[in-house]
């Protein structure tokens, strides 16, 4: 059984997403997708002493919620793949330490949700697990203090800056079941076009999304119209525009069925988020809270979810390094 369709793309035979859940913060609860999320936090602390604890709790509760929705318990899950933006992925490790599920920590920055689904689907399809979970989170306050400035510091954000989503998403995958099938996966390569500006993530990541999308269409020999919707998460306003133009130059037109999660979760102008949203929790919550339920209702029948991540750290930025970026794609179809 050879499922390798090209250097980067594989076929998944029979794995479905059987449940998903999303938890978001206050600001996301004021955005256009507010009604999609399972839980909107009353405040960004959620009764925890530190924001790191809040973020961990969001991951834990998202996993539990996605399981209870379909009457499963943590006992039923064979593997869990999770990661976040914090140093040493403490959001994931501390959040999931009491769940008693075999755990693989992963890091793909904002691409983590799609990376997790990719790995979970492959491990199940390979026969190494029956049920696996993919989880991720981000929190505005934990990300600010690690990557940027203290919350009360009087700094101005540049127009290309993106706002880190406070949110978590969890998806449960199982062999042979689920209304939404994972059909193909394209693994991304690390792309670095020499962008140094840590405040223009979308612009830095757009070439990675371009590279993965191009390979995906080529190795499957399909056109973008194959999908009802193609989403990236999260290039923001600038990155999304750049991606469409980059593909257009190669004669690939995604302008009519393409959206970016970073442009969906907030009212960009009113909520004053400059170029849009970012963070693992952005595509994490939009996919698990909004898009997957829409697929379940068959309002979207085929979806290509592209997770994009900027693989930088505060240290690399201070040392003047450019931003390496990545994009992974999973192709999802509703079951006939």
């Amino acid at each position, binding site marked *: 059984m050879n499922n390798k369709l090209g250097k980067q793309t594989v076929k998944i035979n029979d794995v479905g997403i059987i449940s998903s859940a999303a938890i978001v913060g206050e600001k996301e609860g004021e955005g256009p997708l507010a009604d999609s999320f399972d839980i909107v936090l009353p405040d960004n602390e959620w009764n925890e*002493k*530190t924001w790191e604890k809040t973020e961990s709790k969001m991951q834990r509760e998202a996993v539990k919620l996605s399981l209870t929705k379909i009457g499963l318990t943590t006992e039923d899950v064979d593997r869990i793949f999770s990661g976040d933006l914090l140093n040493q992925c403490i959001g994931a490790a501390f959040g999931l330490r009491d769940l008693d599920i075999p755990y693989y920590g992963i890091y793909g920055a904002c691409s983590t949700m799609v990376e997790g689904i990719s790995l979970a689907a492959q491990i199940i399809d390979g026969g190494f697990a029956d049920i696996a979970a993919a989880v991720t989170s981000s929190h505005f306050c934990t990300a600010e*203090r690690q990557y940027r*400035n*203290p*919350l*009360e*510091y*009087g*700094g*101005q*954000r*540049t*127009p*290309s800056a993106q706002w880190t989503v406070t949110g978590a998403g969890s998806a449960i995958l199982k062999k042979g079941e689920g209304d939404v099938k994972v059909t193909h996966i394209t693994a991304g390569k690390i792309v670095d*076009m*020499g*962008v140094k500006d840590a405040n*223009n993530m979308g*612009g830095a990541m757009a*070439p990675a999304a*371009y*590279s993965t999308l191009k390979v995906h269409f080529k190795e499957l020999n399909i056109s973008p119209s194959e999908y009802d919707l193609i989403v990236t998460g999260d290039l923001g306003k*600038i990155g999304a*525009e*750049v991606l469409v133009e*980059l593909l257009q*130059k*190669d004669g690939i037109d995604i302008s009519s069925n393409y959206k970016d999660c970073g442009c969906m979760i907030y009212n960009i102008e009113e909520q004053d988020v400059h170029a849009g949203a970012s963070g693992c929790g952005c595509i994490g919550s939009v996919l698990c809270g909004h898009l997957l339920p829409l697929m379940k209702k068959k309002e979207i029948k085929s979806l290509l979810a592209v997770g994009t991540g900027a693989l930088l750290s505060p240290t690399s930025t201070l040392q003047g390094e450019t931003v390496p970026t990545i994009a992974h794609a999973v192709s999802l179809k509703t079951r006939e």
Partner: protein
Amino acid sequence: MQYSKKEYLDYLNQKSPNSTIVKDMICAFLVGGIICVIGQAFYDLYNKAFGIDEETARTAVSVTMVFLGAFLTGINVYGKIAKYAGAGTLVPITGFANAIVSPAMEFKKEGLVLGLAAKMFVIAGPVLVYGITASAFVGVIYYIIGLMGGSI
């Protein structure tokens, strides 16, 4: 990809919106100016009303402005003004206080010694390092000029 790295950076630069520089400048001018006027009012209060000598009054103004900057940071107001004022709240000494208090508050959760106290100068520290070092150089230069019989 059709672009070389350099071409891509140029293209991206042209796609990225510029800062609203005129608006930023006006806000910085107004807020920065007002903060200085407040400082002047305190100076007149200390110097003219209380009769404190010029130099001490100036120090007292600095101390007062530092307190105001620190307090407004504490009650979560300084950052909100700074969002619009930019350099108008950065450059006055109130901004120096903000740069000290904001990391101290932020990292309190990592402890009172290694969090609050240790992180107090992560942003403002360089100002002291370069300011004091430069002043020492100035002092040495004056000393040498003095040795050579030069007048100051």
